[in-house]
């Protein structure tokens, strides 16, 4: 028997085992099984292996917490912000996985109201960018400046990407990237929703010493968006870097100097260090 025949035979054995042979193929295979003990023995072994895999590596049930979070994604309106500013001072260290999704969101809200004293009830840090803007960076710089002046760089205050990510995911149409850059000296401090061309868009806020860098993540096909390779430009005195991957364009606006922003971009693009996980359940 040539290698090719042996190959074909093995493929046919597997296909028979998986019920993938058509009627004529099954008929021929049954004859082979009957007439050739070697094939029959091989088929037996293969079938025992397959059964063992199914027995010892069964499908597992998803954890309840995960199912809860998935269910919450399409639950009705988001929880209203807590009116009591003093609530839950320890919210930002509550491990996300221990809580249901709505819980953690409410906690994050409470944190931004209470601990950090931000008036979330006043609304998102939305910037009503004119439609069809020629370039988005200019608007993001204005957004950045406004947020800085208002002293409210983020709507959700948390250094835990597991809190920030679902918060943003529920309010925007972009499934963004959140990397942990604390080991590189750029801790995550929160996130906000920025309106770009009438589309709510996630912005991540990182801190570096006394400076802030805001990374807005846009779909590559968004209006007025163009990609880049991480080069730094200056707009209205702020440094702006943009880069892209297959799905998203990233625009980082910062009051850091050019060198520090360059380091930040480098770290972000390389995915940061191993992500810090909250306490595991």
């Amino acid at each position, binding site marked *: 028997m040539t290698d090719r025949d*042996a190959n074909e035979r*093995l*493929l046919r054995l597997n296909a028979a085992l*998986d019920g993938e042979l058509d009627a004529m193929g099954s008929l021929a295979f049954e004859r082979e099984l009957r007439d050739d003990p070697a094939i029959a023995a091989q088929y037996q072994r293969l079938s025992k292996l397959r059964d063992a895999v199914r027995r010892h*590596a069964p*499908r597992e049930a998803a954890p309840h917490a995960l199912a809860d979070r998935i269910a919450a994604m*399409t639950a009705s309106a988001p929880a209203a912000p807590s009116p009591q500013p003093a609530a839950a001072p320890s919210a930002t260290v509550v491990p996300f996985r221990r809580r249901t999704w709505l819980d953690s969101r409410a906690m994050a809200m409470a944190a931004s109201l209470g601990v950090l004293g931000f008036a979330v009830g006043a609304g998102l840090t939305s910037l009503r960018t004119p439609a069809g803007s020629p370039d988005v960076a200019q608007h993001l710089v204005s957004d950045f400046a406004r947020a800085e002046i208002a002293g409210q760089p983020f709507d959700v205050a948390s250094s835990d990407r*597991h809190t920030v990510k679902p918060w943003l995911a529920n309010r*925007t149409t972009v499934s963004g990237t959140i990397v942990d850059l604390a080991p590189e000296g750029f801790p995550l401090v929160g996130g906000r929703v920025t309106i770009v061309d009438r589309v709510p868009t996630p912005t991540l806020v990182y801190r570096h010493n006394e400076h802030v860098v805001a990374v807005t993540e846009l779909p590559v096909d968004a209006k007025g968006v163009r990609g880049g390779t991480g080069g730094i430009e200056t707009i209205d005195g702020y440094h702006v870097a943009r880069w892209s991957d297959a799905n998203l364009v990233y625009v980082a606006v910062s009051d850091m100097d050019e060198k520090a922003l360059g380091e930040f971009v480098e770290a972000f693009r390389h995915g940061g260090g191993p*992500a810090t996980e909250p306490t595991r359940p």
Partner: protein
Amino acid sequence: MSSPIAEQRFREIVPPLLDDAYSLAKWLSRNPTDAEDIVQDAAIRALQALSTVSVDRPKPWFLAIVRNAAMTFMARNRRKTMAYIGDLTDLDTVDLPQGEEAAPNPEQELIALEDGERLRQAIAGLPSPFLETLVMRDINGLSYREIAEATETPVGTVMSRLARARAMLAKTLRAEA
């Protein structure tokens, strides 16, 4: 920020597939905590996609998203264990292992099959393309055509990967017996 119709489709499609999604993500990431992150990422992507697409075959569709989310996650978090680096076609052109079938030790192999932990380790040790094919077939119960759809791979490649995955498993179990 999703449309009511997308949310409706999402509720019909995703929750019944969560166990499959979680199991696949856990095998691909080899880590239960990462698996939760991956499934959550995949669910977010699915909800967004459902605003614009309707889905004929939910299972391969959602598992394809889970698989892609796993690849993104592993790359982004610098998990080295899942190496999807470079062109894997060379792996597929290597001849299927021959010969071992001719001189097996059936008893040893049967004993090995009863050792669940060893079997699971042998599965986890498979190179990713073979691992995902085996998991989608024997754990998720996808047909060859559905696996081809979920992995964007020709059916012929799915068949040879599956045959090879099983041959590798048998070989590992025999070698360690």
